[in-house]
């Protein structure tokens, strides 16, 4: 009972967003006017729109080049970040999980400490490093630091370490070198860990706000997470549709990847 009530509290915002996005522009302006400073009285948010219409969606999809640009900006930043995290992180995690070498402990501890640093700590210096490399105000200022994030490495180490040693030893006996063992044993068996990192990374970077705010001066490069707040009564209907549209990619990733999301969270909590 308690659980159902709490669960309803979680689903309510989602429902309101979707139903809100079907309100016509007029209804949206009337309902939300009071909170946007254009009308007196109290705001209302109908559970179902009085006059449901696809109007805002049509307007958003056919007549909002700014929305599209930012939607693609988001995609163009998030997918490379996540791909980079896997390309850089998976081999590194494999090394940390499966090899013995001097400095292993040190590198791992360093990665964990860097993972815990809030973004704001290195904001200025990151800016200066990126500026030296000529990358500020380009998408690479978001992609490269994102790809170098150490959290996915931390996560994947836990999954790679759980692969039974017998399998890698068998591969070595069959004459596989370290690279072949990684590609043919590590990657397939560690795939759930990689997918966990992908799902968590996607949800994280779809929400990226601090980095674009600090590193991208040119608003034409801004991702969707910075587009939505500029809302007025006139565009309330369209903003609602945009809010709902921004929700779709992470929601799809969530629904298809929930298993990996849970596995990833659980792995992040394991003790060493």
């Amino acid at each position, binding site marked *: 009972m308690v*659980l159902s009530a709490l*669960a309803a509290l979680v*689903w309510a*915002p989602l429902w309101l*967003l979707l139903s809100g996005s079907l309100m016509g522009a007029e209804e949206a302006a009337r309902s*939300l006017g*009071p*909170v946007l400073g254009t009308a007196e009285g*109290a*705001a*209302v*948010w109908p559970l179902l729109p009085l006059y449901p219409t696809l109007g805002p969606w049509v307007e958003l999809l056919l007549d909002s080049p700014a929305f599209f640009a930012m939607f693609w900006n988001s995609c163009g930043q998030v997918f490379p970040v996540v791909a980079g995290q896997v390309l*850089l992180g998976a*081999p590194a995690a494999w*090394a*940390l999980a499966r*090899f*013995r*070498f001097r400095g292993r402990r040190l*590198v791992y501890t360093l990665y964990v400490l*860097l993972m*815990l640093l*809030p*973004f*704001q*700590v*290195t*904001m*200025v*210096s*990151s800016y*200066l*490093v990126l500026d030296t490399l000529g990358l500020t105000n380009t998408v690479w200022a978001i992609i*490269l630091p994102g*790809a*170098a994030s*150490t959290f996915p490495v931390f996560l994947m180490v836990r999954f790679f370490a759980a692969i039974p040693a017998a399998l890698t030893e068998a591969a070595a006996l069959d004459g596989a070198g*370290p690279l072949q063992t990684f590609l043919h044993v590590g990657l397939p068996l560690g795939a759930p860990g990689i997918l966990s990192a992908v799902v968590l990374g996607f*949800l994280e970077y779809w*929400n990226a*706000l601090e980095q674009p*705010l600090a590193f991208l001066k040119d608003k034409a490069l801004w991702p*969707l*997470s910075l587009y*939505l*707040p500029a*809302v007025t009564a006139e565009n*309330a209907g369209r903003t*609602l549709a945009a*809010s709902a549209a*921004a929700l779709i990619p*992470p*929601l799809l*990733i969530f629904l298809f990847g*929930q298993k990996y999301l849970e596995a990833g*969270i*659980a792995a*992040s*909590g394991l*003790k060493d």
Partner: protein
Amino acid sequence: MRHKTGTPPAERPPRLPPETDGAAPWLFLLPSLTAVSVLVLLPFLDAVRRSFLSAAGGRFVGLDNYRAVLENQAFRLAAWNTLRFTAVCIPLLLAFSLLLALLVGAVRERRGIFKTSFLLPMAIPVASIVLLWKAVFHENGLFNSLLRLIGLPEQNWLDSGWTFGVLVFTYLWKNAGYDMVLWLSGLSGIPPALYESAALDGAGAAQRFFRITLPGLRPTLFTAAVLSLLNSFKVFREAYLIAGGYPHRSIYMLQHLFNNWFLQLDTDKLCAGAVLLALAAAGAAALLQGLLGRGDRP
């Protein structure tokens, strides 16, 4: 590659397992380590260095920046707010998510639906909820209408001391699912045999909870607390999008202050403040380790 010592193999028994795996691990690590060094480690060390230099001219000024930061009123307010937010939110989140995990763990059917429900807010982008939050918590918003209906006093939730409460709620809403999954995985690590033998000994439900469940969750508590601390800094996104760069003073946090210093190019203060924040975060993690980590090794 084996570790090479100068001695001929016949004189010594083969060493098993080998001490190191030679160069291979470094080749695997190289791309990541290069990127991390240039893009994360180097900026951090540079921030430490700059915290001892003057912003203009880069003279060495010792601890002057730190003194200036600690005497700065805005920094004191922001540091206090951040500390207060962390101190309120993290225990609240840990307790609430543990309750969720225990409840969800107790239901047999439809457990999946509840897990999905509580994880769902992780997938809802910050930007999507901005307008909704405004509609709910604005002076003329839905929440006040509800309060009026049941006869409670209305508040301006987005621009008063209550804003702090709204932010706490948002943080709980967003992170409860994550911590719930951590707790669930911790709970599944407690051997059921412990409960069975306790039940045979006649221990009641409360006793089993305090004697078995809580001690068994101790390692989880540590990692959950550290990860919640990590995630608590990200509440800036919600705060910024809803209330802008200069929100009500009850939620003006270090992240706001640093962002504003960044825009004003106050790099000396920013770096000193950032080092203090990093030290505080490391100190908090070490403190948690000291308080909770000992349960790891009986």
